[in-house]
């Protein structure tokens, strides 16, 4: 654990702290965040009301009526010291989702460009995406919107300089070794490489948010006809996605 990084502990509002492991989403940082968040969730520190994570940090909101910043900081530091944040093995996922997707063609107008940027063949790029054991690294920006990753180094492709004005809801987009499935039509610099019928957030559904940080995600190929069928008959908004509960 000699090179295990300890988080910087920083104030975030009068009822919060941020445990920051880096400023940019490097592979080691992203993994350490997953480990640290799971450790915080398991420990349930006294007075902590809410735990959330980004790609680079874990946020704890506490109730200042029940605890103090000093106490939460000390507890968080001791929990962080008790785990190996340099480990490459992530905590086991609690759920494994399989989400059907159409890659490329009219449903993924930037797919070919993305494939060229990775240096892969079309076939190889599909294999990588469909065999990847992705993890939900964070949910945020919009309700239920998953940041998934990390893909191999070849997929470290920057965002487009020119924003695409409107990428549809449920689009699969890629950039910087990550994938996102949009929850709403969104202007974006991420490349639109595929299309699902998976709504990460649906107000009338219980739970409204399908995914949680840490979940494993596998993509599964479907045909444009399958997609059309799911788009017209999609009562749970999950677009044919299946969830296995892992112990």
């Amino acid at each position, binding site marked *: 654990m000699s090179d295990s990084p300890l988080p910087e502990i*920083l*104030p*975030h*509002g*009068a*009822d*919060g702290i*941020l445990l*920051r492991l*880096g*400023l*940019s*989403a490097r592979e080691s940082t992203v993994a350490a965040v997953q480990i640290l968040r799971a450790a915080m969730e398991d420990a349930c520190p006294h007075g902590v*009301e*809410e*735990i*959330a*994570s*980004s*790609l*680079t*940090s874990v*946020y704890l*909101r506490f*109730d*200042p*009526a029940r605890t*103090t*910043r000093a106490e939460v900081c000390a507890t968080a530091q001791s929990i962080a010291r008790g785990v190996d944040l340099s480990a490459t093995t992530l905590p086991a996922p609690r759920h494994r989702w399989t989400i059907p997707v159409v890659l490329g063609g009219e449903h993924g107008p930037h797919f070919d460009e993305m494939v060229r940027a990775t240096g892969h063949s079309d076939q190889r790029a599909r294999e990588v995406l469909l065999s990847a054991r992705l993890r939900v690294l*964070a*949910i*945020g*920006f*919009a*309700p*239920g*919107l998953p940041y998934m990753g990390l893909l191999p180094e070849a997929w470290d492709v920057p965002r487009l300089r020119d924003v695409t004005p409107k990428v549809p809801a449920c689009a699969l987009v890629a950039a910087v070794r990550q994938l996102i499935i949009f929850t*709403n039509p969104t202007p974006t610099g991420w490349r639109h490489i595929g299309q699902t019928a998976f709504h990460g*957030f649906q*107000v009338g559904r219980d739970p*409204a*948010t399908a995914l*949680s*940080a840490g979940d494993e995600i596998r993509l599964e190929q479907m045909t444009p006809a399958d997609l059309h069928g799911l788009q017209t008959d999609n009562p749970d908004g999950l677009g044919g996605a299946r969830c296995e509960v892992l112990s």
Partner: protein
Amino acid sequence: MTGGTLILHRAGPGVTVQDEGRPYRLAEGLSRGGAADRLALIEAAALLGLHAPVAALEMAMLGCDVTCTAPTRLALTGARMAADLNGTSLAPNSTFWMTPEDRLSIGAARAGTYSYLTPAGGIQTSEIIGSRAAHLTAGIGKPLQAGDELPMGEDPDPNAPPMILRVEDRLSGGSVRVMPGPQSDLFDAETRARFFATEFRRARTGNRQGVRLDAEGPPFTTQTETLASDIIQPGDVQMTGDGVPYVLLSECQTMGGYPRIGTVIAQDLGRVAQAAPGTSLRFAEVSAAEADALWRSEADQLIALRKSVQPLRRDPHDIPDLLSYQLISGVVRGDEQGGTG
């Protein structure tokens, strides 16, 4: 348990149902939302003698015309909007009685941005994900319009007399305390010092997600290029790509990639939310320890405010035509001194 219905006959574009929002859902990407000026909900609860805030109508810049189908007390708090009951002005930060014969008309904001009309039994629309609050960016609820009918809970104390609360002015900008946040150190000392020495004006651009602030002088930038998106929250002062500050409000996103120079403390966030376009705002630096010492729970704030509520009394000198005055209705002239602001 029914307290009748509140019927909207006219509504400005920014009228929504709001309560305390949906905490505990940050990990789902859903910000808490709820009233833009949370203190106004607490003040309404204090005025109505309630032990917890209830759902209210939030009105941004422009109000609405309403009638009700059953008698109830209501409270008006937050921004000072021209408000009259059957043509007689209502005092800000006060309660009044309303019966099915009455018509309440709330006009444009004279000071501040967000005004709150709270029935004593609360608005009792169905809860969605644990709250009645519209969260427009999440696609929950929608702005209300003429013809909408909102169920109300029963008034728990229908005979309680009209009350008034004198509140400290938070409608006209001024100084707002900012504590350091996780990214304050990304800004160099000169930029931070300049930020705290600058007088800003609330820009026209702004909504429940956040408000833009304009100022003379160079932008407030950092040297960081590849900042990953991180957790953001209401109160954070975020510098957009061109170095212009936005103060995030209740309906902000949960993650953002712009650097943040600090966080407006909860007690002062209403002052930012209420600042109308053009209003001057300055930021005062406080340490995290000072911010922590200033923190008070909303439950404690309500208890304190309940002690400050007073019967709405009118000085006969302020009433030009005492004989025509409806003593039972609890209305007063709009220019009386008590409770303005």
